């Protein structure tokens, strides 16, 4: 597995990421999401603002697949994600919230 810190330029960047999930009937769902936030070498954070179908699917089976794009090289990487927890406070939450606030103010 590629350590996520080697993909640092693919997170919180200008090129939208892509997320796919699967619903209870086995039907995939795919959409863009603005940012995937780097947490550490083996973890990322996604902000749950609008993508309700995605959130429902992840809550159901704990699986999501994300594609991130390096803003400099254009390289694409696919991440097989497994849900661990959701947060509404704490260091990671605050960091993501600040990042989103900055983006919204632009």
């Amino acid at each position: 597995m590629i350590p996520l810190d080697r993909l640092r330029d693919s997170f919180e960047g200008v090129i939208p990421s892509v997320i796919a999930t699967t619903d209870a009937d086995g039907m995939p769902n795919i959409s863009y999401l603005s940012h995937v936030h780097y947490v550490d070498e083996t973890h990322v954070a996604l902000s749950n603002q609008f993508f309700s179908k995605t959130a429902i699917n992840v809550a159901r089976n704990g699986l999501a697949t994300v594609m991130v794009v390096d803003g400099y090289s254009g390289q694409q990487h696919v991440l097989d994600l497994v849900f661990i927890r959701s947060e509404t406070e704490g260091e990671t939450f605050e960091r993501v919230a600040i990042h989103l606030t900055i983006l919204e103010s632009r």
Partner: protein
Amino acid sequence: MLGPELLEFIESPVMILFATRDEAGRPMIGRGSGVRVDRQSGNLHFLASRSQWPRAVGEALVGRPIATTYVRATDYKACQIKGRVVEAGPADEAHRARGVAYVAEQLARMMALGVTRMQLSSTLSDQELVCLTIAPQAIFEQTPGPGAGRRLTPEAAA
């Protein structure tokens, strides 16, 4: 199921994504290399590169569900069409030509926006194109905003 406006939209130079899934429900992501709608059957002839997206294409088996998303870069207008794969195999000459033309046009459009050739080198591929025939089952609004995720009826999609 696909109205004329939607049909014209997905066949225009929009960016295309698709997702399949394996037996365990793990979703697979790929980028599409063009699509055409069969006017008689209403099925999609969806092109993707097996060499670029081996996992996503590998799970595009006959009978399996598949989701495809179409996004216009200029205004983010987007929709998602979900359905089932009814046929899958190497693209014939006509489909391959469409796929090659689609990829060339997309890359030219992105270069015109200032994206470099190096950045584009891994974005889209016209190599080892497969043609997935998809029977559409549901259409969803995907444009960012309050309507995102709304299921479009055949009437609304017309």
